[in-house]
């Protein structure tokens, strides 16, 4: 399910639309993931506060979204762009890659709630494909 030219255009222009709200979106998506899929909390046992207003959650959500933004800038070579992050997740963090899908779902839920009119099914399918490719690139170094 590789990204067509159209997918890439749609993802880039939606990212521009998201603009400065990306940090909020990332924070909210991470917070929702921890709340709705509590098994994901197992990776953050070292944080003192896993609630939606936790400063640790907010900070990490914006870190994640910054990485997503960088990946969009290098959308033609996601594997290369995410190589070192993939190594980090594979060898140091050892996050089960199934969780990337869970976070992607929550990102989409938040985007849909922030942009109900703009997040049409066409925008949704391109974004979903992109996030799946991103997850795949992030799991590239696992084995």
């Amino acid at each position, binding site marked *: 399910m590789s990204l067509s030219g159209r997918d890439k255009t749609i993802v880039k222009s939606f990212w521009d639309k998201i603009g400065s709200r990306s940090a909020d979106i990332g924070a909210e998506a991470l*917070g*929702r993931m921890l*709340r*709705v899929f509590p098994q994901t909390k197992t990776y953050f046992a070292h944080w003192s506060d896993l609630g*939606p207003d936790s400063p640790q959650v907010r900070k990490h959500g914006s870190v994640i979204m910054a990485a997503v933004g960088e990946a969009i800038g290098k959308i033609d070579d996601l594997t290369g762009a995410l190589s070192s992050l993939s190594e980090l997740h594979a060898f140091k963090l050892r996050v089960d890659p199934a969780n990337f899908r869970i976070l992607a*779902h929550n990102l*989409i*839920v*938040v985007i*849909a*709630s922030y942009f*109900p009119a703009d*997040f*049409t*099914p*066409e925008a*949704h*399918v391109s974004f*979903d494909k992109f996030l799946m490719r991103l997850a795949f690139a992030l799991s590239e170094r696992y084995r």
Partner: protein
Amino acid sequence: MVEWTDFERATIADIFSKMKYEVVGPAALSRCLVVYPWTQRYFGNFGNLYNAAAIMGNPMVAKHGTTILHGLDRAVKNMDNIKSEYAELSVLHSEKLHVDPDNFRLLSDCLTIVVAGSLGKEFNGDVQAAFQKFLAVVVNSLGRQYH
């Protein structure tokens, strides 16, 4: 048996009491057919599903989306017995319709996203958790009679 908190029961009742079935049902099913196009395999006799615009405007899709959403009403009314409520429907989807049960999850994800879009800020983390738990139980019940 599934344990429901008072908050979860109230949240599910509230969401469905305000639900615009003729809007949300078609939106969820058509979104599923666009975002996960392999799901179109079950709708060969629905006419034109050629592109997103055709799917979104297809009256058979719209009607079926409403039907599916109303299918959740029985679970809303009997949250303590969802498994037995859907036993027959599960057999139907397995033996007659031959639907891969993974599709129930795809549709429930699309429904969650459509409801998030329509409720906005009201669809906070706690509400989402209740809604997704409810849908997960329904999805599980629908897949239960497969063998």
